[in-house]
């Protein structure tokens, strides 16, 4: 392929990325975030897979077999702990607006600017080589694809990698430094990175499939052919002496992935929702697994196909398709590698610049009044310009490193050295979130000691092999002190270089960290931050109240300060909103400490914790605060939070209670109403027969000369009405006894059949009068029941007389059925009367039924019969039900256990 084509297509690809980033940012503004989901989040984390993964894994696999897997296995082992570690870090960073690993460590140890600066420098030292290998990968892939071998003696203006570096500078600036944000979140960047992760994955799989199934007949074919070549057999197993280094490599990768600036940026700073972490915990390892499936097959194929060629194994991924004239596939692969490299460079540079400005540049500048004034006029744009310059600086530095050093090493070995640098943050960062006593002296000592050992054991040897230092230094040690040999410190031999360096650097790091922390005390601010970090889930909702700060700051000064960095409208809006939410006044002369803390937090997001501390201190007259006071303030804020929670709980309880009371009241009102209705009905029912009795008796009394027959008729009516009255009074009393539970069942054993026939006997006369036929049908032998004979008979008579009442004038038929099933007696009484509508079925067992159905033609009765029956059956632990449809009669069914407990 011609260089021009490749360059054009690469630029087009970068433009596509830029388009995606733009689109994502527009969506973010419109509150329809593209990246607010766990899948994009997990994909963005795959920025971990750089050109090193893309080209280097194959190279490593071709040289030393499954060894390359350690950098993926390590993080996968540790990933279950991410929920504990990263959730805490994410919460801390959100609450305190921390935007980088340097800021994080500096903030934890009392917002110390020196510590932040040291972390930044170590990052720079460690990461520049890492960036340089990305440049190397791009250049290498470019030259292979264009079949244009770069000459080693070229000056930089005729060197293609120089132009690649320039292009990357432009794009990194475009991506990473568009505007100054108070939280350093870049949704566009995340979207572009996630897209690049997809491209990496697809292109790698494409080559894998081509090699495995296009060139060979599947995995077994490749492995069985390779197994026949003696040289390749060693690639199938881990050499015995390497198991130790496996452990160190895995550990190194597991730690490094937590604190690599680009990983910290995407995992923590760009995180939108903590819960995304959960899905990422399995999606991300899955990504690692998939992208590694084809590594060994490709490596072995390369070895088999280029048996006698001197093609470097790092380039197999491109060389294989090209060898078989697959230009298109080769270009795709190039694009995948390009994605891997560019995504790493863009994110790493963005993260590094934030560190650089916030932890190196700003603390120095904002401390000087003359610079503060200058910053005041331009504020944000100065910071942005500084960052742009810095990005250019880093990439050019990486370019120089590439030209002079890393060109001579494989991709993987340079990458691992970078990992070892970043691993030096582990004690200070992890200790910082779990160990309250950890302090500045320990952190600083640990990181300095660790980095020094790192430099000595891992960087010096590389300088020796480059000829900067004489080989005697390695062989005999400095000034021939043999226990100081960089590759065998204190005489430790038998480990590979990297494991050796990692071991000693972490060893000294930890020793200094722990001893320093145990031996020295904390300042008040450190103590405050330690508590806020370790117990973040306790303080996260009351952060500004939990910061111990005492002093005087003019509100106008705070507003001016904020305006310098965010512009006047944004600063005023943020402060007004915060004041309103917390019921603070902005009209006072001096600012409330909470407001000052809030302003400092906002500024931290833009210029780093240490710088924010400095600028706030510069406008405020601060009072010294002791550790004891910090403890007091933390306690008070915790108590306030508890009181607040208690109050919320109490008010919720009160609400619930009020609701209950209202419900009880409503119930009472309903039952009161029911009682009134019942009384009205009973009164009416009593007065009606009384009226007849009185009227008829008076008539008989006043008319002694009336006809005898009529007199007899009237007297008869009087007797019947008196009966009715008696019945009613008895029923009301009955019901009252059953309802209040004062009635005691008198239980005995009796025959079910006799109960039914006795009941039928007592209403037989009534039925005969209406010419109603009563049929009975029993299922098998019914046996005995232990229950209340009289009460059950009362119920049956009630049902039977109801049935008689509702039977038609002609052809009335009542069917009584009974059976015993599983210890339950079922009795049904069926009539062929008018039936009961569904609405009425719901009401007929209600004692107020008649009161509510004034509109229906009243059938003689108090309206209490069924209510009483239901009560009785309930006392017998049974159930009474009705089934009916209008015009088709009704069936009442009783279910009573044959043994009442």
């Amino acid at each position, binding site marked *: 392929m011609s260089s021009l084509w490749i360059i054009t297509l690469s630029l087009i690809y970068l433009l596509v990325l830029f388009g995606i980033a733009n689109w994502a940012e527009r969506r973010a503004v419109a509150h329809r975030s593209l990246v607010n989901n766990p899948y994009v989040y997990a994909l963005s984390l795959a920025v971990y897979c750089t050109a090193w993964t893309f080209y280097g894994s194959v190279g490593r696999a071709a040289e030393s077999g499954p060894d390359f897997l350690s950098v993926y296995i390590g993080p996968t082992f540790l990933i279950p702990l991410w929920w504990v570690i990263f959730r805490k870090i994410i919460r801390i960073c959100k609450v305190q607006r921390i935007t980088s690993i340097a800021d994080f460590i500096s903030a934890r140890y009392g917002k110390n600017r020196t510590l932040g600066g040291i972390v930044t420098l170590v990052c720079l030292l460690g990461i520049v080589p890492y960036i340089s290998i990305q440049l190397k990968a791009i250049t290498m892939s470019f030259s292979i694809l264009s079949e244009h071998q770069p000459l080693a003696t070229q000056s930089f203006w005729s060197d293609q990698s120089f132009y690649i570096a320039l292009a990357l500078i432009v794009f990194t600036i475009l991506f990473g430094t568009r505007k100054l944000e108070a939280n350093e979140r870049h949704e566009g960047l995340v979207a572009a990175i996630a897209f690049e992760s997809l491209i990496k994955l697809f292109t790698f799989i494409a080559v894998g499939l081509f090699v495995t199934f296009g060139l060979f007949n599947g995995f077994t074919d490749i492995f069985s052919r390779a197994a026949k070549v003696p040289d390749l057999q060693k690639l199938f197993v881990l050499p015995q002496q390497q198991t130790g280094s496996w452990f160190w490599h895995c550990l190194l990768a597991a730690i490094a992935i937590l604190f690599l600036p680009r990983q910290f940026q995407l995992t923590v700073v760009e995180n939108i929702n903590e819960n995304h972490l959960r899905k990422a915990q399995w999606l991300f390892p899955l990504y690692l697994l998939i992208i590694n499936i084809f590594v060994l097959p490709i490596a072995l194929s390369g070895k088999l196909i280029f048996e006698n060629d001197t093609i470097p194994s790092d380039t197999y991924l491109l060389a294989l398709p090209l060898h078989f004239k697959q230009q298109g596939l080769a270009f795709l692969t190039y694009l995948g590698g390009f994605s891997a490299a560019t995504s790493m460079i863009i994110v790493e540079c963005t993260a590094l610049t934030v560190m650089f400005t916030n932890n190196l540049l700003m603390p120095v500048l904002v401390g000087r009044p003359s610079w503060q004034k200058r910053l005041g006029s331009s504020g944000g744009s100065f910071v942005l310009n500084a960052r742009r310059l810095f990005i250019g600086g880093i990439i050019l530095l990486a370019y120089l490193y590439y030209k002079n050093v890393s060109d001579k090493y494989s991709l993987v070995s340079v990458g691992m050295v970078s990992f070892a640098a970043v691993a030096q943050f582990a004690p200070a960062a992890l200790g910082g979130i779990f160990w309250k006593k950890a302090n500045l002296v320990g952190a600083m000592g640990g990181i300095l000691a660790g980095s020094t050992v790192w430099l000595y054991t891992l960087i010096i040897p590389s300088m020796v092999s480059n000829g900067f230092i004489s080989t005697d230094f390695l062989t005999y040690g400095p000034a021939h002190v043999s226990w100081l040999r960089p590759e065998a410190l204190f005489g430790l031999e038998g480990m590979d270089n990297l494991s050796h360096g990692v071991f000693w650097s972490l060893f000294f790091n930890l020793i200094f960290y722990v001893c320093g922390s145990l031996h020295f005390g904390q300042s008040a601010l450190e103590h405050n931050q330690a508590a806020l970090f370790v117990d973040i889930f306790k303080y996260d909702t009351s952060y500004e109240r939990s910061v111990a700060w005492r002093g005087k700051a003019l509100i106008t000064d705070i507003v001016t300060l904020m305006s310098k960095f965010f512009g006047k409208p944004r600063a005023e809006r943020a402060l007004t909103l915060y004041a309103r939410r917390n019921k603070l006044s902005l009209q006072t002369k001096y600012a409330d400490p909470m407001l000052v803390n809030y302003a400092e937090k906002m500024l931290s997001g833009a210029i780093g914790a240490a710088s924010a501390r400095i600028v706030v201190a510069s406008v405020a007259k601060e009072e010294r605060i002791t550790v004891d006071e910090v403890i007091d303030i933390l306690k008070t804020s915790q108590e306030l939070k508890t009181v607040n929670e208690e109050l919320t709980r109490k008010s919720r309880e009160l609400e619930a209670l009020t609701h209950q009371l209202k419900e009880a009241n409503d119930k009472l009102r309903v039952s009161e109403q029911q009682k009134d209705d019942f009384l009205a009905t009973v009164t009416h029912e009593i*007065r*009606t027969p009384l*009226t*007849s*009795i*009185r009227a*008829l008796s008076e*008539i008989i009394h006043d008319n002694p000369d009336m006809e005898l027959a009529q007199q007899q008729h009237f007297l008869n*009516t009087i007797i019947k009405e008196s009966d009715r009255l008696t019945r009613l009074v008895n029923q009301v009393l009955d019901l009252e006894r059953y309802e209040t539970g004062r009635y005691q069942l008198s239980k005995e054993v009796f025959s079910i059949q006799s109960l039914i026939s006795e009941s039928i006997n007592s209403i037989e006369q009534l039925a005969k009068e209406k010419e109603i036929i009563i049929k009975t049908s029993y299922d098998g032998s019914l046996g005995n029941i232990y229950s209340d004979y009289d009460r059950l008979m009362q119920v049956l008579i009630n049902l039977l007389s109801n049935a008689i009442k509702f039977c038609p004038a002609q052809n009335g038929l009542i069917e009584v059925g009974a059976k015993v099933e599983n210890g339950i007696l079922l009795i049904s009484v069926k009539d062929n009367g008018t039936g009961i509508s569904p609405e009425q079925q719901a009401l007929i067992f209600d004692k107020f039924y008649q009161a509510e159905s004034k509109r229906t*033609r009243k059938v003689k009765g108090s309206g209490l019969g069924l209510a009483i029956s239901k009560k009785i059956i309930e006392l017998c632990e049974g159930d009474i039900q009705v089934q009916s449809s209008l015009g088709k009669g009704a069936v009442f069914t009783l279910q009573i256990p044959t043994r009442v407990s």
Partner: protein
Amino acid sequence: MTRQHIKILIVDDEPNILMSLEFLMKKEGYRVFIARDGEEAFDIIRSEVPDVVLLDIMMPKVNGYEVCTFIKTSPAYQHIKVVFMSSKSREIDLQKGYELGADLYIPKPFSTRDMVAKVNSLATSTL
């Protein structure tokens, strides 16, 4: 005009009360009509236009209040004297009855002599 020309309608769903009132009013010499519910009452009011209606309140289908309201709001019938007789005998019930335009409200149970005397004086006023 004699009592023979005065029409009295008795409305009650309780047959025994109907029976006794019918006996009493006939003995006083009135022309007596009976209805067992509000609907029957409407029919007789329309066909016979009675002079006095003895009206129970709690009845199925159409209750006494509705019958009274019908009588007292129709120009053709509002001259009819309405006597409520009900077991609803609280002050508030009586008040409601009079508000609907009833001429008398006699709580149940009533004295027959009292009832007869009151109906007689009301009937005389219609003459």
